[in-house]
């Protein structure tokens, strides 16, 4: 579980639609760095929470190009430079035959980078401070985390989620 904000508020909902509406409302009223915990992906929630696209696609593209180039270089080095052997009269740099391995190594490195950078981007790396908010978050409950530093902001956020049908509100960092 990602690290929680030091001060703020967690609102629990029983209905995913309520969560989406509350998140949209909180974003509209100017709360920043919202976070949501749901048992399954809810499409469209990132948009209403104002979360932009992450840097993961860029990292994956970079890894893809790196992996594909490394795959090509490996074959070029083995077939042309280190141990040139004439196979069936084909040119040493038989690039059409290389393409399969270029593709595979590109996909492999890109997929692994994608997988690992997801953990980094979501701050899901192993750490000693992670606490489980609520066991039912993996079953049938939905939580919205609103960081709020001051008392007034916390009160405002509490009023908001109450209006939107939260069934439990917990204040963080008392």
């Amino acid at each position, binding site marked *: 579980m990602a690290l929680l904000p030091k001060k703020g508020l967690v609102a629990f909902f029983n209905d*995913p639609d309520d969560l*989406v509406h509350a998140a949209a409302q909180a974003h509209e009223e100017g709360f920043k760095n919202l976070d949501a915990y749901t048992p399954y992906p809810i499409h469209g929630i990132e*948009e209403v929470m104002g979360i932009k696209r992450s840097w993961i696609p860029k990292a994956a593209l970079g890894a893809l190009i790196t992996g594909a180039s490394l795959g090509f270089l490996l074959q070029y080095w083995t077939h042309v430079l280190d141990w040139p052997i004439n196979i069936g009269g084909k040119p040493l740099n038989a690039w059409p035959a290389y*393409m399969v391995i270029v593709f595979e190594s590109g996909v492999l490195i890109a997929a692994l980078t994608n997988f690992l950078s997801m953990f980094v981007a979501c701050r899901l790396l192993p750490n000693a401070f992670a606490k489980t908010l609520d066991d039912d978050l993996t079953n049938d409950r939905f939580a919205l985390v609103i960081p709020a530093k001051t008392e007034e902001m916390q009160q405002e956020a509490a009023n908001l989620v109450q209006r939107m049908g939260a069934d439990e509100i917990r204040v963080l960092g008392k």
Partner: protein
Amino acid sequence: MHGHDLITEVKDPGPVRISKGLMGGFIVAIILGLLLVIDGFASDSVRAWQGLLLSYMFFLMLGLGGVVFTAIQYVASARWSVAVRRFAEGMAWFLPFGLLIFLVISIGGYGTLYDVESTLRESLGKGGVYHNNSSNDLITKGFFLSQPFVVVKGIVFYAIWGGMAFLILRNSLSSDKARKEGERLKQKNIKLSIAFLILFGYTFSIHCIDLLMALESKWFSTMFGVYCFSGLFLSTTCVIALITLAFRRVPTVRPAITHRQLYDLGTWIMAFSCFMCYIGFSQYMLIWYANIPEETFYMIARSQNGWGLVFVLLPLLKWIVPFAGLMPQPFRGNPTVIVIVCLLVLTGQFLDLYWMIYPVFNSSPVFPGTAAIGSFLALLGVFGICLNQAYSRNSVLPMGDPHLVMSVNGSYL
């Protein structure tokens, strides 16, 4: 988005008639096309037959592709595509005209286009050009590709395609009237679609072997059927996307065609452009790598004397354009981008068939001939009128499908 603007009922837009101006355009295209075809046959009948074969394959793939798309959606119980499914179903109305053109080509043009018997006899005289084939196999191949058998096979295939398309479309259409039967008819269509897809796989491959691979009667490729299929599927998806965009301009249909359907169609085009490139590359790479004379002469003829330029255009138009054009998320559901990409992909499909057919008779790229342009125009007109027939008789949305509302709302996500 979740929870917002959900609808509980889709309004029946009823049948939609193609505008009179466009229908006039189609009729003009048919008349102009027929005149050009006559001109083509009068000046150079060999090239005219190639052009006719090209246009026939292009539009057969669309007509048949409509049924294949529908069947795949049924088999997968797909929900996203319910709102656009009837557009694909309408494309099947072209099949009867396909049979007509097929008979013209296989009866009238067989002698000009295919030299199966003489090539095989010649190779028999030399003791066989194949390394591993005994002369007995060549006799089998000669029989398989002989004119009477090609005609008989074609008629049987059309009976299968037409018959199964008729049954699938009839079930889909009758669920409009008897909405309570919707679920039962859908289950029935799923079974029919499974049978159709299995039969289609074999029959379409053999049809392409009969009409396209037989042009080079000494050549063979085990990838050929799936290569033609990937072209079929890519071009069909593009045409469905274009028809969907055209229907978005009809006010009564517009509410049912959301950004999601466009986005999913864009994703399909992108996915199948990768499939097309994968199959095309596999065929090329294996022939290049194995380097057996019986296989390589096909690729050599198609990569020299200017044909190489056409060859390079194929992955560019059929893979790089859709892949790069539809990769950014905002572009995938953008009508302008989809139209540009689809038109370029369809150009690539035309060039692909041109690249398969014309090098047999021409050592370097030539103008496809007035008959090619004419028959393309004429069949485009026929295709448009077939679509009008389909869309103006029945509702353009499958109103009886139990998942229509789900498709429009995007609640399949």
